[in-house]
């Protein structure tokens, strides 16, 4: 990306900073060339002790409240029944071990693969049709200079995020359903009615549209925060250099948003197998599982609902491993594009 009139991107600034600090992250691959002048562990500990101290509370909380329960996922290798003994933890020791049997059950189920397929299709739809919307809206709002209009439209656009999915779907049904406003109006004028809500063919677009309606407005908030940190001087300097409206957006605004977009994009790709749960479960019966079953609803129907804890844990572990692989890959791509992503190489 050429940027003649604009400051260096953050990523570049980052690189120079790291280089100047002449230190490397621990745990780097052994084969990697270390910069010369590597500090001893003790020195680095002394240098970074404040940073470590600051990080510890969050890490401690996560260790206790996430990692300990996550250890419970060992039941994926069992036929777990939490009620065989006095306490569910003890039951974990007493339940029989079955190796990879639960995983085999998951992989052998054709419904699982159908759910994976639906999930991926929906993910790509959301990525293409949903992800850019908050960014575009944020740019739009940012370009409005009348403060009241900005404030009011922002406040309005946030609201749907606070509607429950039940309500969102009810509203869509009342407008686009077979007895909805549009269908009834058409009928009264002598046309045929229609029903968008029970059509398996367009279900994935429907779900995406509902998602955009509910959460796109709320999604702009992070981007607005990023835009707020752009100095007007930059725009002025660019204008002085003869950059027009679009070039300024390309060379000033977008670089300011890029790290955030990259971060969110990497996380979104990592979360590709999560495409909505409540929203889809509520509408699953309207179009049937053939079109609507996604991974999370599959796990709910086949594991959680039946208290088949081991099966649910196995499916959860599979999903987690795939997600980690995806986020690592996406992060690599981000680095390749010169972005920071989630973490540094």
């Amino acid at each position, binding site marked *: 990306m050429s940027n003649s009139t604009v400051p260096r991107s953050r990523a570049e600034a980052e690189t120079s900073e790291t280089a100047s600090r002449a230190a490397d992250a621990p745990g780097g691959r052994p084969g990697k060339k270390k910069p010369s002048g590597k500090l001893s562990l003790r020195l680095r500990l002394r240098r970074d002790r404040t940073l470590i101290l*600051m990080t510890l509370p969050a890490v401690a909380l996560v260790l206790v409240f996430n990692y300990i329960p996550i250890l419970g996922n060992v039941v994926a290798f069992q036929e777990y029944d939490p009620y065989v003994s006095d306490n569910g933890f003890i039951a974990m020791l007493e339940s029989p071990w079955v190796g990879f049997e639960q995983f085999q059950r998951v992989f052998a189920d054709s419904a699982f693969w159908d759910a994976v397929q639906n999930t991926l299709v929906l993910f790509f739809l959301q990525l293409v049709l949903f992800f850019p919307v908050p960014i575009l809206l944020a740019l739009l709002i940012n370009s409005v200079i009348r403060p009241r209009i900005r404030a009011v*439209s922002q406040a309005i656009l946030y609201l749907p995020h606070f509607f429950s999915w039940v309500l969102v779907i009810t509203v869509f049904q009342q407008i686009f359903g077979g007895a909805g406003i549009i269908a009834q109006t058409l009928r009264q004028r002598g046309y045929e009615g229609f029903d968008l809500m029970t059509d398996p063919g367009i279900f994935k677009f429907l779900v995406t549209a509902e998602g955009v309606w509910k959460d796109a407005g709320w999604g702009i908030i992070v981007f607005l925060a990023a835009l707020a*940190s752009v100095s007007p001087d930059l725009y002025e300097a660019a204008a002085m250099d003869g950059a027009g409206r679009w070039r300024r957006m390309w060379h000033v605004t977008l670089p300011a948003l890029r790290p955030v977009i990259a971060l969110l994009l990497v*996380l979104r790709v990592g979360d590709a197998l999560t495409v909505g749960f409540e929203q889809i479960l509520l509408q699953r019966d309207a179009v049937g599982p053939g079109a609507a079953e996604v991974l999370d609803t599959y796990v709910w129907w086949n594991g959680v609902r039946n208290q088949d804890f081991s099966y649910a844990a196995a499916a959860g572990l599979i999903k987690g491993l795939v997600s980690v692989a995806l986020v690592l890959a996406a992060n690599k791509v981000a680095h390749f594009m010169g972005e920071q992503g989630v973490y540094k190489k």
Partner: protein
Amino acid sequence: MTAVIDKAAIEEAAREPRWWEAPPRPVWEEEPSKAGVAGKGIVLAGACLAVLFPLWIVIVTSLSSKKTITEAGGLVMIPKDITFIAYQELLSGGQVTRAAIVSVGVTLAGTLFSMAVSVLAAYGLSRSGSLGHRWFLMTLLATMFFGAGLIPTYLLVQSLGLTDTYLALILPSAVSVFNILVLRAFFMGISPELIDSARIDGAGDWRILWQIVLPLSRAVVAVITLFYAVGYWSAWFNASIYLSDQDMMPLQNVMIQLVQKQEAPVGVSQAIKTGQISGLAIQMAVMVMALLPVAVISPFVQKHFKKGMLTGAVKG
């Protein structure tokens, strides 16, 4: 141009612009095209209408009598007889006031705690190459993708003695890794020269965080505070699992229960006559009440979004 000084014109130029008027453009900015302005207006108005129309339905339904709702067979679009009976039902019984206090308390305490932990962690992780940085980051990141079942989580919270305490509503969900990552991304965007020069001046990390990083990150701190606050305010599942005492329940739970009153499964002899109040109206009233805090808080957050307020954040 004449050299005649028009006093009125000067006053006109000096006064604050009214809200419908655009504030003066910087001199370097070209006049926008008519079509551009119109296009923007149409898109923005369309987006707002797409929100306002359903909102209208929700509000009207919440204000409708059971009779009107029955006749409409569901949501009401055209108001007929306005009644506040659903709101009265919500606010009567004294439960809501107490629950609201609980919710405000949990939200304040929880948000403060979460922000403290998250800002520290985000800053602690913002210098790539620091000791353990990658390790800590991975530790946090993994929790975004691996979940735990309800039973192990419950057993943990219970064996820590947190059930039936408000800590159970805060501690298990105190850390959002997503929020830490966003904060960190913004912190890392701050010009390294600023920080380096402060360090040369002898400032330690605490001072740098407090005096340089935080003031320059007001927008993102406002956003993340909002995320946490909204999270605590609208959470209800943890309360319904970890609390047994009805008198401790936060507002969301009480609201949900009010909606359910109309929906007990058959076979449960409720023997209540719901009379004039429609369950749907109550549901919609709950929805409207849920929007109120947003309307209240929104301006405070937006204050931090003024364009270019945080000069120097992006290195020029």
